[in-house]
């Protein structure tokens, strides 16, 4: 791939999940992944990291995924950065029934394998 690596911010309160995403996505050599396990620090991390896409858990202590998404969208520094939810709070059936969106945003239902995540990333990264 000639393009520079796409930068992905993964926000999830569970470190094992962010770590596995980082390992698998970076193994493809297409992505550079930054992990954030504290939702309160996620906005700052995003503004600093300038990701091309944000993967966002929904149910998190502190600020939940929904609130955080609003704040991220509201940030001028992050304008136009796609947000994809990654959540254990929805089923695959719901994903298809809702056209793959929560609150207008696309989402992936856990558990999801690397190939599905990559497919999704490619879709929203254009």
């Amino acid at each position, binding site marked *: 791939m000639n393009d520079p690596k796409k930068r992905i911010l993964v926000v999830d309160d569970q470190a094992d999940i962010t770590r596995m995403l980082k390992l698998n996505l970076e193994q493809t050599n297409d992505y550079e992944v930054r992990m954030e396990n504290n939702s309160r620090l996620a906005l700052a991390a995003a503004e600093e990291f300038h990701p091309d896409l944000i993967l966002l858990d929904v149910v998190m202590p502190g600020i939940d995924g929904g609130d955080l998404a609003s704040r991220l969208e509201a940030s001028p520094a992050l304008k136009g950065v796609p947000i994809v939810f990654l959540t254990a*709070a929805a089923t695959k059936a719901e994903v298809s029934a809702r056209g793959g969106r929560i609150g207008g945003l696309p989402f992936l239902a856990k*558990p999801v394998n690397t190939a599905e995540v990559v497919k999704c990333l490619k879709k929203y990264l254009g």
Partner: protein
Amino acid sequence: MNTTLFFERSNQADQAVKESEGRYQRLLASVTDYVFSVTVDQGKPLATSHGPGCEAVTGFTPGEFEADPFLWFLMVYEADRPAVTARAEQILRGEAPPALEHRIVRKDGSIRWIRNTVVPRKDEQGRLVMYDGLVSDITERKQAELALRQSQERLALVIQGSNDGIWDWNLTTDEAYFSPRWKNMLGYEEPEVQNHFSAWERLLHPDDRQRALGRLQACLSGETPNFELEHRLRHKDGTFRWILARGVALHDAGGKPVRMAGSHVDMTDRKRAEEQLSQAYAELTQQQEDLKRTLQELRAAHEKLKAAQLQLIQAAKLESVGTLAAGVAHEVKNPLQTILMGLDFLSGNLPASKENTKLVLSDMREAVTRAHAIIQELLQLSAQRDFELKNEDLNLLLERSLLLLRNELVASQTSVARRLGAGLPPVRIDRGKMEQVFINLFLNALQAMSPGGVLTVATRSDRFNGDLNVAESAHRQFRRGDRVVVVEVQDNGSGIPEAHLPRIFDPFFTTKPVGVGTGLGLSVVKSIVDLHGGAIGIKNAPGGGVLATVVLKAGSKDSP
């Protein structure tokens, strides 16, 4: 005349006398009458002379009567003497009274009835000088008369005692005798009913006429030995009385009926009692029917209650499973996420030679998929409240569900027989959830069949009539006559053991081998169908295999 001759003669004479005696005695025994004469002077009897027949009648000889001038009076039976005395006085006064019948005591002590007829004889001045009498023994006639009178009295008593009316019809003249009671039974006095057969005919109830005349004819022709008829006769007050008529016919030597007689019994009260009894019986029967129906209704209500209770238990079970699932799912999915991605990572970094390790990783990935499937189905139970109901075409929805399973259908070489009804009314359903229902039913069918099986999918529009294959739950959802859409999914596998059928919708109840099913598929299906206000039933099809029936209320085309 010599003595021998004399004796011979004497003997002959004796013989002749004996023969004459014998003849006389025989004659005497046959005599029942004798005459007597009484000479009268100055109104008093002077002498009596009795004819020879007197011995036969009274036992006394004419000589004995001559010897005792009072013998004729002394032989009169004591109780009859006043009448005899009175009559003798009448005669002596010159009157000519009629014959007198009275009793005498014969010489041998037996009592006889006689009839004494007297003819007075007078001189030129009209004075009674003599009277002649004829005494006839009338004992046999008297006895016959007495017997007849007793017989008549007995009959009268019986008739009176039985309170029956008597009729006697002369067929030659059509005259009829109707007893006072016969007439009185119908409110009439003696002269008010003509003694003629037609009187009875006139009183007949028109509806009974044909039957009554038929019975009469049957008896007269000898077809029936007796005449018996329950019929109505018009009472003087205009009402009709039920009368039981019984009788017999008498025929002449030529076999022609000449007379018919019998009785009438007023059976109005009995008939009324019978009617009341039969009415009471009918009422009782009705009450019994009502009771039976009430009992049936009670039983049905009890069954419904039981079913409702079962459903509540079922719902409570599902609710708790759902609540639990919702709580657990999130916590389980995250570790599954880590394991899945961990497996991805390990797989990507495995040397090609490590076949066993690859196999282990593949098994682990399979285990994650299975665990995830269970979580997903559990979540179905907890996530059913937020429905998006829209009018959908069930035929289209079924086609989409089949399309989603095309890989599985091909792999199992299953052919699909479609019998989709045309022009189905739309149904208001959540498309995604209802697809889940049919996908689950199709998957069950596929798993129940050997490769090469036939999956039959049928739809039709119908009126709910209670005998659809959803009896248990449907009565709560539908009323008879409701417009419904029926979907039937049938496989040609080996069916479900009957003992399993009652538990088939229980969560985690499965008949499939371990690892093939989660045991939640049908729980989810039923839960979704119930929440749509529909009904589902599963049974073994008569021709083999399992028949699943889903009944949904038909929506109207106008609603969104």
